[in-house]
């Protein structure tokens, strides 16, 4: 067994590069029997597929249908939900909040992902070095995720409080600001503050996955590269980045998909305020459904959100495939 593995490691460079050119999983070599292999491996997939269809299929379909219905509290009791075609969609899109919510969603997502990913990657790269307490520090880094979101939003609200919050106290003591900024109460700063908190929440996720991915890159490749004269930035560009790509893809796409529907952070910090400065499509959808009881409109917005995620995913995967093939 060990022989086989050692052989594989030495040829890994080639194997992986061959793998890179076929991201959809065409890694079989000269051995045939593709059909039967595909069929029997279907059994490996079956439990997961069954679960996904059962737990996701029905909700998705129901949500899509709800977008076309007039669905209110009455519907819950009587089951009557008159079909209204695109009325809900027209109503939400023409609402005065929609443009703002759309813009905020884009800004929030781009800002969060950029911040989380870059910071996460930097920290993950840093932790590749060997130093005492590396493991302990790395696992402690996951702590922000252990704190229930209700509690972390409360803590962040205190930290960001304009009058007594520690952040302003700290900035004031260092004379970095003239006036105490209203992080959550000023329409120009609120979105920024919410993005920063979301970055804070997302960093552990990015660090952990990227670190795992980095660990999978064998030392031998770096040695070989350094013998060829590639170290530091060039080592990153020619060794790390290509091999990290599949993991990076997953992290980015999942990151966008998760961030676009983020709800708890916004509700916990600002409730979409002040004056809709932090209202996103997700939070607006929630408010329409559960505060104004117009579930049809809430579902319509929810579907628009899914479409946005979808479009992004398709564009990204296509761009990625093209880049890899080059």
């Amino acid at each position: 067994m060990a022989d086989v593995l050692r052989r594989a490691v030495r040829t890994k460079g080639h194997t992986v590069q061959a793998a890179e050119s076929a991201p959809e999983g065409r890694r079989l070599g000269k051995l045939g029997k593709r059909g039967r292999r595909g069929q029997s491996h279907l059994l490996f997939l079956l439990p997961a597929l069954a679960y996904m269809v059962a737990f996701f299929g029905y909700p998705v379909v129901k949500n899509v249908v709800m977008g076309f219905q007039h669905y209110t509290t009455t519907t819950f009791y009587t089951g009557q939900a008159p079909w209204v075609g695109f009325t809900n969609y027209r109503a939400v899109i023409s609402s005065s909040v929609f443009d703002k919510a759309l813009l905020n969603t884009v800004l929030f997502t781009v800002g969060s992902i950029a911040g989380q990913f870059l910071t996460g990657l930097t920290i993950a790269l840093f932790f590749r070095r060997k130093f005492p307490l590396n493991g302990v520090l790395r696992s402690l880094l996951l702590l922000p995720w252990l704190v229930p979101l209700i509690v972390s939003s409360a803590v962040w609200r205190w930290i960001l409080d304009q009058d007594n919050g520690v952040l302003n106290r700290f900035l004031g003591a260092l004379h970095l600001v003239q006036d105490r900024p209203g992080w959550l109460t000023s329409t120009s700063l609120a979105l920024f503050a919410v993005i920063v908190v979301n970055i804070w929440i997302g960093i552990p996720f990015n660090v952990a996955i990227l670190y795992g991915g980095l660990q999978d890159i064998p030392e031998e490749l770096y040695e070989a590269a350094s013998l060829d004269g590639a170290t530091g930035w060039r080592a990153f560009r020619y060794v790390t980045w290509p091999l990290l790509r599949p993991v990076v893809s997953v992290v980015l796409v999942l990151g966008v998909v998760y961030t676009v529907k983020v709800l708890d952070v916004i509700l916990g910090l600002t409730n979409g305020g002040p004056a809709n400065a932090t209202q996103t499509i997700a939070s607006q959808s929630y408010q329409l459904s559960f505060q104004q009881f117009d579930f049809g409109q809430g579902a319509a917005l929810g579907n628009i959100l899914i479409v946005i995620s979808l479009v992004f995913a398709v564009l990204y995967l296509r761009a990625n495939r093209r880049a890899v093939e080059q």
Partner: protein
Amino acid sequence: MAQRRAILSRTTLTVALALLAPLSLSACGSSTGSSSGSADTLRVMDYYADQPDKGIYAKVLDACGRQDGVKIKREAVAGPSLIPKVLQQASSRTLPDVLMLDNPDLQQIAASGALAPLSDFGLKADGYAKGVVDASTYQGKLYGLQPVTNTLGLFYNKDMLDRAGVKPPTTWAELKSAAKKLTSGKRYGIAFAAPATYEGTWQFLPFMWSNGGDEKDIATPQTAQALQLWVDLVKDGSASKSVVSWAQADADDQFAAGNAAMMINGPWQFPILDKKTSLHYGVVQIPAPKAGGTPVVPLGGETWTVPQTGNAQRQAKAAKVVACLNSDKNQLSLAEQRQTVPTRTALMDKFAAEQPRMKAFTEQVRNARARTGELGKDWPKAATKIYTAIQTALTQGATPAKALKQAQDG
């Protein structure tokens, strides 16, 4: 070949087991099922999930149950999760026998047909404060009975006011000048809550209504004047800019910590404020726009309803429990224990005399208005417009009239 087949069948077996596992586990899971118990047990749902309210209502419900020979099976859920639960139960036809609702939510639920009119069981709301009856009435029929209510008042720090030589204000002009005078250093003159939620709307209603504003159309000069009051308080520094993100609990924290000399809040804060022994506070009515005016305040509190469960016998017993909860004895006892005001006008005088602390609230409740009194189930939209306008005016420096018009049309 034989080996391969064996493995294949083993794989199949494993996969089949994996698929069947959840089903077998579900058989082991406990089931709640629908309310098909005997008429000896009634299911009650409310949102008094924490002490001391939980214990107080447990006692009252059990006593009422025993009176009618039924056992009470109670489900106490967290506040914001009550309505989603009610909706889920409505669609799966598993509504409880007795359902407590926050009074502004009754219209929505009644409109859906899920509640039974109380007149079917011979219950009437005679002698109740008008606003309370309005909240629980949908299309002319009474659907709920509310034993106790509460509202907002102006809390003030006795020591701070004495030291500044300021009397508790009774008009808006006095409020503005008192707040300005009391603002010094880190301390703000007044604290209130103006967040982008229904709490912001709730806090604003006394000012809007007392000045003649109406929720049917908020783009009126009367409402604009009320909003101008708030804008002025924040602009001249008497109230913190953070009011746009504070909930009433946050405003209370500020008041308790001595960062605000006055605050707009409700009697449910008494237990929390009492814990701080160094704090000496008093409560007066919300200031009226002009001298001699009466403040018009919104009504809080929860109402008890009887959902349509399809079982006439159980519904009759449930109605008896609701009536018992609303008996004079229980109204007074609940009001005493929970810092609320009884809803029968005849009891109010007695109560005010016995509980001097609640005097300001008891007086205001007589003229209180239900939030859903005019718009019924369309209240949530109007409530959203109101807090949107407040937020815009307080944070973007728009004039109140413009902010209100924008929100009303938007």
